[in-house]
Structures are given as C-alpha cells and as structure tokens.
C-alpha cells in the first residue's frame, strides 16, 4: 500500500471515529441537560464521560485533518481546514468540515475556560455545537464514498438514529418535572398560582 493510500485510509478511518465520538458527546449532552442523571452513573461521571469523549473526538479529528492535508492525492491546504469554503478541492464539503471543526473548537475551548468567561457566554457558545453535528454528518456523507454503503452506512444510520432519538426523548421529557431545576420551576409556578388564586 502506498503512503498516499495509507494516509487516505487513516484520514477516512479517523473521520468515522470522530463522527461516532461526536454522536456520543451530543447524545450524552442532550440526555443529561438540565441536571438529569443517567441511571446507574453518578452525575460527575457522566459529565466526565461527555468531556473526555469530546477531547478524544478532537484528538481523532486532529489526525483526520492532518492526514487529509498531507495526502498527496488531494490538495486541501492548512488554511482550508480552519477557514470554511476556501479549499480548491471540494470547496463546499471540505468547507462544512472546517465549519464543524470551528464550532467544536469554540465549544471545547470555552468549556475549558468556563470558570473565566461565566455561565451565560459559555452556554451561548456551547449551544452552537448542536449545529456542528449535522454539518459534520453532511461532510462525511458527501466526501466518504463508502459511507453510503455497507457497514459504514449502518454506522451512519445509527448515529443519526441515536441523536434523533435523544432529542425526541428530551423534547417529550420536558413535560415531566422530574429533574431538579424543572422541579424548582414547578414549585415556583405552584406558588404563583396559589398567590393569584388567594
């Protein structure tokens, strides 16, 4: 196998792993938003999982990006990995990858600096990571020929199903005040209702 194809395989492989890890990160984030626990695991462990998976995703992404740029078959250029839509090769789809990376980096960096920037700023930027996942998915789907068939296709379907399922469950669960901050909301609403009716 030539260096070129080795790099190409490495890039695609790490790209797939990154996508799976990103899916894990988002599903964990969605399921535990607002302080809800995951059954069986202490909350700090779930938070730790979320954090470590995202850092691992960044590590795999780094390899994915470096190997893609070094690959002699395609000319992408370092700038295009960070600045969306400047690549000569597959401008749009590489651009989406760069966009997804930018959003992810923003989320990771602000999380590491959370205590310095305060909750409001952190939260605003962190929510933008919701956009990075579908962007990454489109990037993967359009640029990876083998993701459309076979095992990788099922993996792709699995990622989409997991994320969609988590979001759907979250939206439905918003109706029950079973986590603490929702319980507090309920106590406030009950107090308001009692006062108005008195």
């Amino acid at each position: 196998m030539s260096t070129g194809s080795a790099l190409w395989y490495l890039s695609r492989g790490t790209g797939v792993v990154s996508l799976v890890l990103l899916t894990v990160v988002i599903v964990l984030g969605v399921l535990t938003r607002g302080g809800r626990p995951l059954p069986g695991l202490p909350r700090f462990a779930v938070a730790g999982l979320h954090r470590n998976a995202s850092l691992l995703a960044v590590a795999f992404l780094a390899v994915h990006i470096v190997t893609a740029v070094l690959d002699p078959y395609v000319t992408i250029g370092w700038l295009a990995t960070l600045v969306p839509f400047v690549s000569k090769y597959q401008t749009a789809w590489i651009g989406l990858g760069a966009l997804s990376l930018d959003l992810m980096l923003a989320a990771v960096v602000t999380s590491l600096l959370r205590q310095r920037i305060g909750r409001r700023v952190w939260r605003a930027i962190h929510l933008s990571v919701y956009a990075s996942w579908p962007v990454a998915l489109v990037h993967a789907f359009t640029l990876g020929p083998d993701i459309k068939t076979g095992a990788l296709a099922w993996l792709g379907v699995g990622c989409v199903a997991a994320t969609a399922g988590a979001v759907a469950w979250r939206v439905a669960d918003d109706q029950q005040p079973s986590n603490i901050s929702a319980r507090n909301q309920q106590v406030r609403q009950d107090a308001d209702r009692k006062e108005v009716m008195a």
Partner: protein
Amino acid sequence: MSVLCEETAVTARLLPDDAASGRLRDLAAHQQVFGAPAPAGALTSTAIVAMVEAAGLTGRGGAGFPMARKLKAVAAGGSPVVVANGAEGEPASSKDKVLLSLVPHLVLDGLQLACRAVGATEAYVYVHEGPLVAMMSSIISTRAALGIDPVTPKLVSAPARFISGQESAVVSRLDGGPALPMAVPPPVYLKGVHKSPTLVQNVETLAHLALLVRRGSGWFRSAGTEAEPGTMLCSVTGAVAHKGVVETPVGTSISAVLERAGGVDGDLQAVLVGGYHGAWLPGSAALDLPLSLAGLRPHGATPGAGVVVALSTRTCGLVETARVVDYLAAQSARQCGPCLNGLPAMAETLGRLARRDRTPGLVERVHQLAGLVERRGACHHPDGTVRFVRSALTVFAAEVDRHLAGGCTATDRAAVLPTPRTRGGAS
C-alpha cells in the same frame, strides 16, 4: 395610619406638630419650620462626614449600621451613587410612608447632603408603586424647577413586595432588572448601581441627617442614649388604642411607646419588635425593655425598623405566626432552592400546628426546616424568618402545647398582623 405627635419639642424632631396636616409638603412652609438648608457649596464632604460621625447617626432601615462608616466607604470609590430607600416592604411598618407624605423635603434635603458627603452626581429616590410615586414626582419637579438641588434625583418605583427594599434588590431594580436580591459579592458600597459605589440609605436616616447638619451633632445627641443617640420613628400597631407612627428617643421603654399609642387594648400577651424578621417578646418582660440595640439584643431582638406590635391575650400567637410565615414564604424571591422549598414547608407545618393538628413531630420538623434554610440563600429573608419563627415557638410555647392537645386559648379570631396579598410572582 395617623401620626401621634409629642408635645415636647425634644422628640418632635422629624414630625413636629405642623406636619400632621400635610402643610410641610410646601417648600416655603418646610423651610419656615425647619430652617433653610446650608447653601450647596458651604459644607465640604469631610465636614459632613465628621458631623455624622460625631452625632453617631446609625441607619434607620433596620440594620442600624453607622452612617459615617458607610459614607467613608462609598466616598472612597469613583463616581458614587446615592439612593434614598423608601421601599418599606414590611406590612406592619408605615413610618417611611408617613415621613415621605408629611415631610418629603426633609428627606430630599438629607439626600442632597448625602450626595455632597460622598461626592455623588447621581441620585435616586426609590419607593413602592402607589400614591407616593405621583406625590414624590411632583415634589422633586418643584425643587428641580427652583434649582435648589445640586443633584436632581431620579424617581424609581418597585413592586410593593417584602424584599423590594433589600439593598441588592434596590441596585438590581435601578440597573433595569427585577427588584430581587442578587448574589452577595461584591457589596453595594463597592459595586452597586452600574458597578459604581452606591450608598443606599433609608429615608428616615436621611431626614435625621438633614436636621443634624442644620442643628449640630451635639443637638442630635441630646436625645437617645450615649451609644445610640437620636430619635427614631416607630410604627405601633396591633392591640393598641391608636395605631400610628410615634417619634421617640432611642432607648424609650416599650411600655412608654405603647402608652403613646393610647395604651394596650386588653391584657398584653406578647410584643413583636422589629417586624416580621424581628422577634417576639413575652408581654411582661417586654414592657420594661428599652427600644435600643443594647437593651434588646440580650433578649434575642433588635429594634429593627421600629415596628412594635402588641398582641393581647385574646389573640392566638401561634395562628398569627403561622399566617405571617405563609406570607413570608409567598414573598420569597424564589431564586434559591433552600428558601424556595423550605419556607413553604415551614409555613405548611406551622399551619398544621395552628389548626391543632396533633401529628407528632410537627415542632421538631419546624426546627429542622429552620436549620435547613438559615444562611443558605442570597439574602437574609430565610434568616429573618427563622428568627421570627424561633422566637414565636419560645414565647408561645405554652400555646403550642395547648394546640398539640387539641385546644387554643384565643377568643378573638380576627387577624392582627397584616399580611397583604400581592398579585403575581416575583418581578
């Protein structure tokens, strides 16, 4: 609420005889009775602070903090702000409303002096929504038109809730937010209204300031005690013949204050001193106690903002307490978990005690909840409520036992302590 004026001049300082008619709302009449204030440039800020320090004036908003210390702390910072706080959230207290209605110019003169003392060019008058707003607005405009105020204050109103007058709630409201307490650091004298050092002073304190600068710190000290000089306004209500606001030297005995309000109507069971964050005192012991920090602290109470409520033997202290705690729970800002959950739980348990529910463990549960809410919040609302509740369980211990046995000694079910209903949630 009526104003009960003392004949002798020594205690009729803030509220002389003329005041009750309302004629001192007129600037000319005000200056005729109290004398004209010193011209704007005549007094340096150091001079004013020195006079306040020599006079020993302390805050009349409830905390009793030495004003000179506050002035120095705020003056040390850059572009300070001064707030005249007339948001009297305490339902049993009416002294600030009476003061602002009858001698508003005295408060506004004091506000100018406070601005001079700290070097402020920005000032606010902060009151509850209601009739006072229109009145204060017109008085402020009159003074502005005559150009007598170096710093024209802005009038800001807040919902008439118990905590609207809390220091950080005032700052929050003035910054355009809700009138709700903010998380503690930094203190408002360092970073208050738009992050500037802010002096928040009760309107009565400012009125005293206006007079002591005119007449001297020696004059101010001629009434009251050595450690706590001056006079104070008391809102006397409950089982008294004539409910109203009384001006009296600090350190006057509670019995004398009750006499000024026409005397107790019936047999005195207990006295609530300091308002709903204050403490109950047993009737017999209360009568001889002086209304001063030194006199009341050993008994677990403070004069607070001068609220004195007499409870006769025909009313049930436990029922009154339970109803007030229910009110206090509803008045929570609902920003902090322990208060938001704990105060309604306390109110519910006390309610059961009041209704003669004989379930074992109710009193223990109240004490447990008290321990869970105190000092676990952004403001002192839970702490004050706990002090009120603990003093009630002590003073009305016999009544509690009677309730647990299914009885109650009260013969009169009419509510004594005011617990107004306010619409809507915290805003």
